[in-house]
């Protein structure tokens, strides 16, 4: 029997559908692998063995009865702990939600279940998705399967690590300013951040509502495309959900990319990139040319402001979104002298330092006298950033940058200085602010043997292009590297 825990999503689904493997044995293999490996990797905050085995048995029963199976039937899926799962703890890796069990499923969780996916458990993350290293988890950091002294990235670090190490067939992360792409890059896997509104946010615990999107993390582009196809689509419970029909993403795999115009952002790697990243990015351009793509230089003149704009908008929205965690209706309560004191103590004890920092920053940016100077101005500069992309896409079909300026760094390396940590997101922030889709695919290894990621961006709702070029590139470079501990 093949090792089910290492197989691709599409292969697993096919093997289960054909009866070569049973969903229960696939789930058992995955749970066994989690038991063996997750002590070190700590990708999971909660493993639901019982629920997973039940769901798997249901798939096997359905198959035995000749029912039509969903596209994820029997595939073990991990869910980042910021998406609500009915009956399963959902904590956002925060003390303030310790033990919280939501009474409903997020839209994406419903979709995964409806497609026959077997939800294995909830994945580690930076608290409330704020962070780029997983060091902000209140329940201990997830580790990079390539090197356990290094970060898996963040905030969807647990999701990327679990995917890389085969602790799930694929996972769902969330991306506000790069939170699926950057960890995917650090862990050598693929992640798609869809167009804002392509995937419903219903049941995704909000960090910054105008930026948050759920995105799949998978071990190859085809798997990511299948996952995106499952979760994308209109949901009337999210007023920002896009109504346009969903494309057949998987059908883009294997299509020709000859003649595709690839925009290379001028001076992209000038700003604090590691030499290994600069080199990998240069190599990538040659490989794309070899595939028949046409490289064009494009400019994003306002990109340099993305960091400032993001660190005003996201904390401002977060300060309001996180106000509901006050110890009154759910979650932690620390009793104080009176109501106000109880609020302050609950939140003081329940939130970690990075969350407090962003709540403070955001509250300040919205407070009387500063709204115009900070929040409103940032939203105007956001317009300029968005216009840059519109301009650029008049000259190219997709646009590339490195996903992150470095490969996975060591724990503690940046945790003393918020600004240096924030710099990890310089490439992923602009597409987030513009609302456009982007994928991160592995594009090689550093001399230290760590994966490096390539970010590809497309215009609004053109996720198809990302799949087409991502798949062609992945095939061309024959990416099949797995973390040392994988097999």
């Amino acid at each position: 029997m093949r090792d089910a825990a290492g197989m691709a999503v599409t292969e697993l689904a096919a093997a289960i559908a054909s009866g070569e493997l049973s969903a229960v044995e696939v789930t058992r293999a995955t749970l066994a692998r989690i038991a063996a490996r997750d002590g070190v990797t700590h990708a999971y905050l909660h493993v639901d063995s019982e629920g997973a085995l039940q769901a798997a048995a249901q798939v096997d029963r359905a198959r035995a009865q000749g029912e039509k199976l969903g596209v994820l039937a029997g595939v073990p899926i991990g869910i980042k702990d910021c998406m609500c799962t009915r009956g399963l703890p959902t904590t956002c890796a925060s003390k303030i939600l310790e033990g919280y069990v939501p009474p409903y499923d997020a839209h994406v969780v419903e979709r995964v279940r409806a497609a026959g996916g077997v939800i294995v458990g909830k994945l580690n993350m930076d608290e409330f998705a704020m962070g780029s290293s997983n060091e902000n988890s209140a329940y201990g950091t997830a580790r990079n399967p390539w090197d356990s002294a290094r970060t898996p990235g963040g905030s969807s670090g647990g999701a990327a690590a679990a995917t890389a190490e085969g602790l799930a067939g694929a996972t769902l992360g969330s991306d506000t300013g790069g939170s699926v792409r950057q960890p995917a890059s650090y862990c050598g896997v693929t992640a798609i951040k869809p167009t804002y509104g392509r995937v419903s946010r219903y049941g995704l615990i909000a960090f910054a509502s105008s930026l948050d999107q759920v995105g799949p993390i998978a071990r190859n582009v085809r798997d990511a495309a299948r996952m995106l196809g499952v979760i994308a689509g209109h949901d009337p419970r999210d007023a920002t959900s896009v109504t346009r029909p969903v494309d057949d993403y998987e059908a883009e795999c294997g299509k020709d990319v000859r003649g595709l115009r690839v925009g290379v952002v001028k001076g992209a790697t000038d700003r604090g990139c590691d030499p290994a990243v600069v080199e990998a990015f240069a190599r990538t351009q040659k490989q794309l040319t070899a595939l028949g793509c046409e490289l064009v230089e494009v400019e994003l003149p306002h990109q340099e402001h993305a960091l400032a704009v993001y660190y005003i908008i996201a904390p401002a929205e977060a300060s309001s979104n996180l106000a509901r965690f006050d110890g009154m209706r759910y979650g932690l309560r620390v009793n104080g002298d009176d109501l106000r004191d109880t609020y302050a103590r609950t939140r003081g004890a329940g939130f970690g330092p990075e969350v407090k920092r962003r709540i403070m920053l955001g509250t300040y940016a919205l407070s009387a006298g500063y709204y115009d100077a900070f929040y409103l101005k940032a939203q105007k500069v956001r317009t300029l950033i968005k216009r840059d992309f519109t301009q650029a896409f008049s000259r190219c079909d997709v646009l590339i940058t490195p996903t992150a300026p470095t490969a996975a760094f060591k724990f503690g390396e940046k945790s003393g200085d918020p600004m240096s940590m924030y710099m990890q997101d310089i490439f992923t922030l602009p597409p987030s602010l513009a609302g456009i889709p982007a994928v991160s695919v592995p594009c090689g290894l550093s001399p230290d043997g760590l994966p490096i990621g390539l970010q590809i961006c497309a215009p609004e709702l053109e996720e198809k292009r990302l799949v087409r070029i991502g798949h062609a590139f992945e095939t061309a470079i024959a990416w099949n590297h797995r973390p040392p501990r994988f097999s």
Partner: protein
Amino acid sequence: MAAPTITIDVVRHVAKLAALSLSPTEEETMCRELRAILASMAALEALDVSGVPPTFHAVAMHGGLRPDEVRDSFPRAELLAAAPAHEAGGFAVPKVMDGEG
């Protein structure tokens, strides 16, 4: 934007608005870090955005409306079970003074 000076008093005021208790050490750290973060945003100040509309929503959209239909509410017991304290079907919270808020 007017170069903002973050002082301990500003930190305390903002913490109060945010209903966040901070230890004296946290206040100091916050003061230093907020200053550094805001200083890094200085370049925005110089940028001319006159005539540029804000982008509150990244993708142009009109909110779909919901028909005025009653849906089932959630079972009370399940909702109350998640609460730190509840009594007689209500969420129990520290005594609320009239006129607060």
